[in-house]
């Protein structure tokens, strides 16, 4: 017998057969009945929402129940594979702790006392309050916090309502400064998925990017494929990450000193003449300013700052130089570390440019030429007041500076914010300085949360609107901008469980009650998508059957004589020295400034990902919780011994401002520097409704009472807190 990949097309003919009412086969006999051929499985393609990578998935439905999720082989982000979390999506679908019906708060805010309500009552209440706020304070007094797929429904709703105050944690707490840094250099960001051509790299450089633990599916596939094909790996990380375990060169850098290393590398590449001169001559400007500005950044100088031996800095720089341009300097993703994050990202971009890697095989490839028109919509009202979402930061993006809206909510200046609409984000976990978030929430007249789980922020809401999971709904088409343009469909695999409803339905129903029905002129979301497909010239039927379509002839990844890059910077060139920054009074070439290091007895608090969880959202997912039930605090084994701490024992973390964590287990390990501790982000949720994860592990965010705002983009550096460990009393 020959093994071939699933020929799922044949079997997925009846895409929505899973919707058929479940027959009476008891669950116990399901597998047996399938084996015996009594019932046939159906396969429905859709895409994943356990994180934001949007991998194509194919759901196997047996007797009305989803029993397996497989990767969709024709989908570029999954290529037939799902990560552990994507595989565990069924755990969310059947989590008994899900939000099941609309809930209205009957106690004080945050008390968690709710009563069940009908959709009509809950939506009516929300609409009434939103109307009230609009009347009294104007529509700008409502703010939207959103992340992920729900954004496609609630951003139009709130825009139609008349506010542009929107904050997504994906900017100021995540990719914001990175994207700004690359935009200032190349005129565009590195994309999401990042356009890293690791498959073809000869050298891959990860600077704090912990791929493997950071489980962005296709990117990790490319990473291992690149390594499999012989790429050399350089990992800069103060912790011996999974990626570091695969590296030829591991640089356990002193936290917060990455910029020094990068400037030294840039300096070596320049002084040893390893940069791509013709490439720079053609595409870049500001070289001599750059060379001048970094000339003092010698390896010896960097050794002092970074704790990395000068010889290793030299050797790694040469590894890059000798293999250019097939070198991927990974732009990173979660970039909000120390408040100088735009400049650090700039340094990454500059290094990429010097090596000639932008637009070259094995470096960073160029975005697809193709594009898709979004469906027409009635134009949204012009804002009456200046939106607050850029927070006054000169380069902040439209995704918004979340904490700026929060601060305005507390101060009431420049104008009052009275209502928050929250969808798909757990603000208490996502934003630094939790106390401020709570303070802001307590000032509100209205807090509405659309969520699937009773997470921390949802359990603060006046009204909780239960969205169904991604496996039970339509959402906006996902437009993929990898090498080629692609379009993917999310469609319901089964009907919504309980009384939960899709986000589009909630938005539309609210619009009806807010007299905004004109903005939602379709009756079902499928109808809207179909219309969009017609406009774009895509076959909806194919999309429904296949789940994802790649538009042919849209790839132009590398620079060729015919395919010349366009840099949308001020100068139209790669800006090694940035005019725009200079104009706004910032350093045109990044300048290293030493950051404070932890005082005696304290450790720098750092955090990252577990391969089997997504932030807080999966902590209660039964399929994933069983693999990792609570986070641990990593501490250097020697330090642990000195403190008399044993592996597995519980401690409390106390930060420089006296903030105390929930109890957390010690992981005493050789895999980390002595000046820091590390933990997986997203734990220590408080709602007791989370039967598995309630009060399990510690919440890093509770300890991030300080944050360093990047003056260029307004993003929040969150690794600037110091903690000590105390044995549990």
């Amino acid at each position, binding site marked *: 017998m*020959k093994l071939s990949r699933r020929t799922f097309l044949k079997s997925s003919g009846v895409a929505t057969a899973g919707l058929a009412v479940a027959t009476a086969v008891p669950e116990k006999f399901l597998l047996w009945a399938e084996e015996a051929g009594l019932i046939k499985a159906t396969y429905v393609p859709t895409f994943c929402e356990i994180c934001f990578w949007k991998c194509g998935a194919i759901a196997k439905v047996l007797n009305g129940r989803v029993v397996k999720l497989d990767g969709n082989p024709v989908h570029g982000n999954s290529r037939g*594979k799902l990560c552990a979390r994507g595989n565990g999506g*069924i755990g969310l679908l059947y989590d008994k702790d899900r939000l099941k019906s609309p809930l209205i708060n009957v106690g004080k805010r945050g008390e968690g006392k709710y009563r069940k309500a009908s959709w009509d009552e809950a939506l009516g209440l929300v609409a009434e309050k939103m109307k009230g706020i609009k009347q009294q304070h104007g529509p700008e007094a409502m703010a939207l916090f959103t992340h992920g797929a729900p954004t496609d429904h609630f951003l139009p709703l709130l825009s139609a309502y008349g506010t542009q105050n929107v904050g997504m944690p994906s900017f100021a707490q995540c990719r914001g400064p990175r994207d700004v840094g690359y935009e200032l250099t190349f005129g565009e960001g590195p994309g999401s998925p990042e356009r890293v051509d690791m498959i073809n790299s000869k050298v891959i450089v990860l600077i704090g990017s912990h791929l493997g633990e950071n489980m962005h599916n296709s990117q*990790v*596939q490319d990473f291992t494929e690149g390594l499999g094909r012989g790429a050399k790996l350089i990992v800069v990380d103060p912790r011996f990450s999974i990626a570091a375990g*695969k590296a030829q060169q591991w640089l356990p850098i002193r936290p917060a000193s990455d910029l020094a290393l990068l400037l030294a590398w840039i300096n070596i590449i320049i002084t040893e003449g390893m940069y791509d001169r013709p490439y720079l001559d053609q595409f870049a400007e500001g070289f001599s300013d750059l060379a001048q500005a970094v000339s003092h950044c010698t390896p010896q100088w960097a050794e002092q700052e970074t704790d990395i031996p000068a010889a290793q800095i030299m050797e790694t720089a040469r590894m890059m130089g000798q293999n250019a341009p097939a070198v991927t300097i990974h732009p990173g993703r979660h970039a909000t570390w120390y408040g100088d994050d735009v400049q650090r990202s700039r340094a990454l971009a500059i290094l990429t440019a010097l090596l000639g890697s932008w637009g070259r095989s094995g470096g960073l490839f160029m975005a697809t030429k193709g594009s898709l028109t979004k469906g027409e919509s009635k134009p949204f009202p012009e804002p009456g007041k200046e939106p607050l979402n850029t927070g006054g930061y000169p380069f902040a993006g439209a995704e918004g500076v979340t904490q700026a809206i929060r601060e305005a909510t507390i101060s009431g200046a420049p104008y009052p914010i009275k209502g928050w609409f929250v969808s798909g984000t757990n603000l208490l976990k996502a934003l630094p300085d939790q106390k401020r978030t709570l303070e802001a929430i307590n000032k509100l007249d209205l807090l509405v949360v659309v969520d699937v789980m009773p997470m921390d922020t949802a359990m603060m809401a006046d009204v909780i609107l239960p969205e169904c999971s991604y496996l039970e709904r339509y959402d906006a088409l996902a437009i993929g901008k990898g090498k080629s343009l692609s379009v993917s469909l999310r469609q319901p695999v089964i009907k919504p469980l309980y009384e939960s409803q899709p986000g589009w339905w909630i938005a539309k129903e609210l619009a009806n009650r807010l007299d905004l029905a004109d903005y939602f002129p379709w009756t079902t979301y499928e109808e809207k998508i179909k219309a969009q497909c017609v406009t774009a010239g895509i076959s909806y039927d194919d999309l429904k059957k296949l789940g994802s379509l790649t538009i042919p002839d849209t790839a132009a990844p590398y620079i060729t004589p015919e395919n010349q890059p366009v840099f949308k910077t001020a100068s139209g060139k790669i800006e090694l020295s940035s005019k725009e920054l200079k104009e706004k009074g910032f350093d045109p070439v990044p300048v290293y400034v030493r950051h404070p290091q932890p005082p005696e007895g304290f450790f720098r608090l750092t955090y990252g990902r577990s*391969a089997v969880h997504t932030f807080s959202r999966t902590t209660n997912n039964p399929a994933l919780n069983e693999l990792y039930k609570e986070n641990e605090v990593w501490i250097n084994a*020697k330090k642990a011994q000195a403190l008399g701490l044993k592996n597995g024992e519980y401690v409390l973390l106390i930060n420089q401002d006296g903030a105390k964590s929930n109890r957390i287990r010690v992981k005493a390990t050789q895999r980390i520097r002595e000046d820091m501790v590390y933990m997986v982000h997203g734990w220590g949720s408080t709602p007791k409704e989370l039967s598995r994860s309630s009060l399990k592990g510690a919440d890093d965010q509770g300890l991030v009472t300080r944050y360093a705002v990047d003056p260029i983009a307004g993003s929040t550096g969150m690794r600037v807190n110091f903690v000590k460990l105390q044995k549990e009393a």
Partner: protein
Amino acid sequence: MPKYAMVIDQRRCVACMACVVACKNENDVPPEQYRTRVLEMVEGEFPQLRMELRSELCNHCDNPPCVYNCPTGASYKRKEDGIVLLRKNRCVGCKACVAACPYDARYINHEKGFADKCTFCEHRLKEGKEPACVATCIGKSRIFGDMDDPKSPVRIALQNSDATVLLEGAGTRPRVYYIKKFSKPE
């Protein structure tokens, strides 16, 4: 007659656990029980460290002590393709096979009482699919195929690298091969 085998290229494993979750869903494995697992081993002292990542499952031994020790014939090695399988309706749940396996590859299904373990997803092989863990392996660390077919991925993988088996001294003659113990290139 295929001779199924798996090659695990440890250099490509990233300990993402996709295999672990996929296997559970595919095979209806009860909560807190597993047919496959992933080990992370780190040796040395900061900063001189070495990491080994290794996924483990039933080795479908050619000399399977679990089969020999089964008193009812519930455990057997299938003649046509060498997969070690279980006739669930014959199993008495005596656990002799669990004790006999040097790889701790078996467990007793705590919902149903029978012994259970990896089947190389033989039900998927029948449909022409790869085992679930292989299909979803993010690192392409798990490679599956027919040892008798010179073009199969397992043969190709084994040709190009040195491979070992686990606990060779146990005399079990495993059909799961491991490439390159230490993921860090020496």
